[in-house]
């Protein structure tokens, strides 16, 4: 068997594509657009996942929430002592945070209460806040860019009035805005002191929204988690690992819009393939018959068809992915991105970061190229195994 590449055959295949120029261009364009559409969705999803994974390992090892009647409720801070007594637990802190609904703008903000005297607090705030003023730490309000824009549109430029559950008002001065670099994380956030947060949400001093727990040895997280579950049967224990799994499945190919798009793309693809599988044209069949009569084996004829299909599908792949990269990362995916963003008034102007994911590129390749190649070779094989004599007469 001759192992070296038959360049004459390759040249013949190229010639065949050039001779059917309009058909070749049409198929390439359709394939490229299909691949571009599918790739765009994959790229946007990957970028969002990549953003999430940047900060995953900084999250608390375990978050403990209390459930009452199956619904989340505040937890007593007194449980911290029991938690700290579990072997392996390094630290446990009560968190006060929640959602504040600003009725005028019909927007929900995330209000987080932090202890200004906590380790790293000032240092971090200086890093992430524009022109951070640490003088007023006990009565402060640091907001994300989205919140600032909303407040400004309602003339809250220097301070903001929170309405408490009893109807009273808590006024806090606007101390700073989070940097644009962390817009994706902080856009709808308001950071206040824990004291202010308790006041705004009317959470008593001995209660908290949840407890975050640090475990010294990551290998022991599962053990500590099960101990916590035994200690507090009414609690929900969320580990960092569980969140990791959650993030990996976010914008899953099985879910919603992704699935719809996938099915539409596959459907269009299979329409093309069905058309090809229904057989070669009489002219193409005649050509195959002539080649057989001239001494071409079936294998060689199929190899030539393989070259044709592989060339078209590879070029379409490169074009399609190239278009998708340009569309997603340079144009920032207009129209398509709004599918992922939702329609909140607090929409942020984040930039989709570029991620080179070879797995995704390989997936797109194997979803497109082999299928098209197979669709071309099958009808060619059917024609090639026919009697040459019948075809050419």
């Amino acid at each position, binding site marked *: 068997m001759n192992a*070296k590449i*038959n360049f004459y055959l390759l040249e013949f295949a190229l010639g065949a594509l050039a001779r059917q120029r309009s058909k070749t261009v049409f198929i390439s364009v359709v394939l490229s657009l299909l691949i571009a559409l599918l790739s765009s969705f994959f790229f946007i999803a990957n970028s969002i996942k990549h953003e999430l994974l940047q900060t995953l390992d900084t999250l608390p090892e375990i978050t403990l929430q209390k459930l009452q009647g199956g619904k989340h409720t505040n937890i007593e801070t007194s449980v911290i002592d029991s938690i700290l007594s579990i072997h392996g637990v390094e630290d446990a802190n009560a968190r006060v945070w929640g959602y504040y609904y600003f009725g005028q703008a019909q927007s929900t903000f995330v209000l987080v209460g932090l202890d200004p005297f906590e380790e790293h607090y000032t240092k971090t705030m200086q890093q992430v806040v524009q022109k951070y003023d640490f003088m007023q730490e006990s009565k402060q309000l640091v907001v994300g860019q989205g919140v600032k824009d909303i407040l400004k549109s309602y003339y809250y430029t220097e301070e903001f009035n929170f309405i408490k559950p009893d109807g009273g008002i808590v006024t806090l001065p606007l101390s700073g805005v989070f940097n644009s670099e962390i817009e994706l994380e902080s856009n709808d956030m308001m950071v206040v002191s824990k004291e202010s947060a308790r006041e705004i949400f009317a959470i008593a001093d001995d209660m908290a929204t949840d407890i975050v727990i640090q475990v010294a040895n990551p290998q022991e997280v599962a053990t500590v988690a099960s101990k916590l579950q035994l200690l507090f049967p009414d609690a929900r224990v969320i580990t960092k690992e569980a969140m990791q799994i959650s993030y990996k499945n976010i914008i899953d190919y099985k879910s919603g819009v992704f699935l719809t798009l996938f099915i539409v793309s596959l459907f269009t693809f299979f329409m093309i393939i069905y058309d090809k599988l229904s057989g070669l044209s009489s002219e193409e069949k005649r050509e195959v018959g002539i080649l057989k009569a*001239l*001494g071409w084996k*079936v294998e060689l004829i199929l190899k030539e068809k393989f070259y044709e299909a592989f060339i078209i599908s590879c070029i379409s792949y490169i074009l399609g992915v190239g278009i998708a990269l340009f569309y997603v990362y340079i144009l920032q995916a207009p129209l398509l991105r709004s599918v992922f963003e939702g329609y909140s008034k607090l929409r942020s102007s984040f930039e989709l970061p570029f991620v080179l994911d070879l797995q995704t590129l390989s997936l797109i390749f194997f979803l497109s190229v082999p299928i098209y190649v197979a669709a071309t070779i099958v009808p060619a094989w059917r024609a090639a195994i026919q009697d040459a*004599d019948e075809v050419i007469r």
Partner: protein
Amino acid sequence: MIHLKNVSKSFMTGKKESIEVLHSIDLQIKEGELVILRGASGSGKSTILSLIAALAKPTSGDVIIDEKNIAKISDDFAALYRGENIGFIFQKYNLLHNLSVEQNIMLPLIPINLPLELVQQKIQNVMEMFHIEHKKETLCAKLSGGEQQRVAIARATVKDPKIILADEPTANLDKKLSLHFIEMLKELKSLHKTIVVATHDPLFFGLDFVDKEILIDDGNIQI
């Protein structure tokens, strides 16, 4: 060298009906002979050529070429056999019209993947022999009947095959071109090829350089 031994060939015309085109024929052609198969349309002449070229298989009987029976060989071996031994000039030439003259002549050489210089030399030789080199880059669709014929002959002989088969080569030509073809046949004969021509054109009958004329009548050989 070519021996059709008790060969019959039937073609299916419907699901259950078939028509027998050759009835137990026995035919022998020696190496280097130029044989004319005479007969009306539908007499079975083209079928005999197809059997010799392994383009079709006999329903019964043996087709022996150089002591090898090709009656029941696989498709791949048939293609290999054709590539090595047969040069076929088809009735309608069966050129690929959207290829140039040079590209059409090159088609039989592609499977064997020879070095480029050798390929170019072979193509040049046959183009010169059949006076078609000035139309090298022209698409076959734009050639006249006579030019297409010359391309067909060039393509059939580019691999220097032992056996040349021609099926009604002058069916679409005028007398002048037909006579020209006969001249080319003479040239091929001088190269000691075994040539079998299937035709009902009377111009081929009684030629002095023809070794044998065989009359095929309704699937039988008339001696």
